[in-house]
């Protein structure tokens, strides 16, 4: 399937609201958008979120988008680039949350505590990357997007109890990883420090 076919399919998908016609366009562009986002955000979960959001935006704004005869690649780039800016705009919140979460795990640390908060934030990123898709999405919406449990339940079409369960599971997973990491670093510090 070449770009002409994809463009024709996309026009049909957007005009008729036919999601299956959207598939060829999606599968053609998704890897490119994803690796673009991954290189810029340096995080698996953020790349997944950004890439998915790009296509959701195209789909939900299909009635107002002008793709006819336009430059498809240029359109996708513009939306993807906006997603990256959105991500970096929200990263302050994310880092703040990550360090507060790291603080609660670390507790009242010593002044010469070898574990710094930036490192712990990276650990959290890694744990979020490794979470099951559904749990990760709920965690991101709740802690990084500051949505309420009710809003998340509506957005993901799951019950509020399931939302609560996902959040407590993801927090437990992060705490466990942070504690294990800190123990390891402190042990290494005393051996080699």
């Amino acid at each position, binding site marked *: 399937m070449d770009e002409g076919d994809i463009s024709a399919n996309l026009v049909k998908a957007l005009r008729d609201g036919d*999601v299956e016609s959207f*598939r060829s366009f*999606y*599968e053609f562009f*998704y*890897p*490119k*958008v*994803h*690796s*673009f986002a*991954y*290189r*810029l*955000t*340096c*995080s698996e979960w953020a790349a*997944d979120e950004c*890439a*998915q959001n790009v*296509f*959701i935006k195209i*789909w*939900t704004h299909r009635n107002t988008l002008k793709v006819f005869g336009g430059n498809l690649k240029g359109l996708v*780039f513009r939306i*993807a*680039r906006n997603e*990256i*800016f959105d991500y*970096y705009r929200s*990263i302050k919140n994310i880092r703040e949350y990550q360090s507060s979460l790291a603080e609660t795990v670390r507790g009242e640390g010593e002044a010469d505590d070898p574990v710094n908060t*930036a490192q712990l934030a990276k650990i959290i990123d890694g744990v979020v990357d490794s979470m099951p*898709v559904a749990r990760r999405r709920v965690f991101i919406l709740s802690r990084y997007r500051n949505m309420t449990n009710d809003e998340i339940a509506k957005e*993901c*079409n*799951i*019950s509020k*109890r*399931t939302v609560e369960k996902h959040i407590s599971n993801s927090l437990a997973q992060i705490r466990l990883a942070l504690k294990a990491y800190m123990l390891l670093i402190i042990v290494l510090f005393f051996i080699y420090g």
Partner: protein
Amino acid sequence: MVERKIREEFARALEERDGDVINRILSSIDEESADELLKDVWNTSTGKEYGGNAGSAFDEFKERIYGKRRNSGLSRTIAWISSAAAVIAIALCLFLALKPNHSVTRWAEMTTGYGKMDSLVLQDGTKIWTNAGTTLIYPEKFDGKERHVYVSGEAFFSVAKDPKHPFIVTAEGVNVRVLGTKFNVKAYNDESDVVTTLVTGSIQLTTPVSDSIYKLQPNKTLVFDRENGSVECYLNKEYNLPMWYCDELNFNNITLDEISRELERRFKVKIVLRNPKCASLRFYASFVNGENVDDILSSLNVKNEFRIVRKDDVIDIY
């Protein structure tokens, strides 16, 4: 054009996968320069590095735009309850359909509008006259041990004799049980009194407030007040028996308030008593010659106790 130094720093951050440095660079330069850097990343992102499966990502995309197809716990419960309800409903329908026909009572309803009177003969030969503003509910065919009808309003019954099948009238909570007789029931839902008058034969009454059974003799009237539950019984003079079904109106020591309500129903008019003193005036009167509402009201006003102003169907009494 982005400075070479920034360009190099940006490339190094990409290489070292340092998101915080990338963020710092992008937010420290103007939008045009940032676009230029991003465009480079875009053009060099071929998608070959992407290790995932675009097909399963598309499935997730569909899930996000349509919502989860999988049922949540709550909707599973609802689905279970509704399928159980459906099974019960089907079973009930089958049961009703297969049940022998004679035990299913088909009810009919007859409503008599204001300004009208009506009558009908039931399947057992009982004749019923219904006064204005009355609803009668009766079975198309009597089956079972009892003959049961429901009335709201005023009706005169001439019940066909059938000792094996008692005839029961339910009127605003009052049950009248008869074997074969003539009687009148007046039970409008906007009046608190339920008035039962026996003409011939005998009847038994029960009220909703007690288990007492009242036996009524001919020419006697029993009044049950639905508001306070009181029961009053009195003997009627011959001329005061209900004769409305013969187009006669009899008022025996009745207030103008009650009379006006009767006239409203009979003649389909609205009577407004503007003066409370008038409402409690009492009258003895009988109209047997088919007089209209104006005749009746002016006859009642022989002493000039009130003033009648009629405008179309609304009559004001001052």
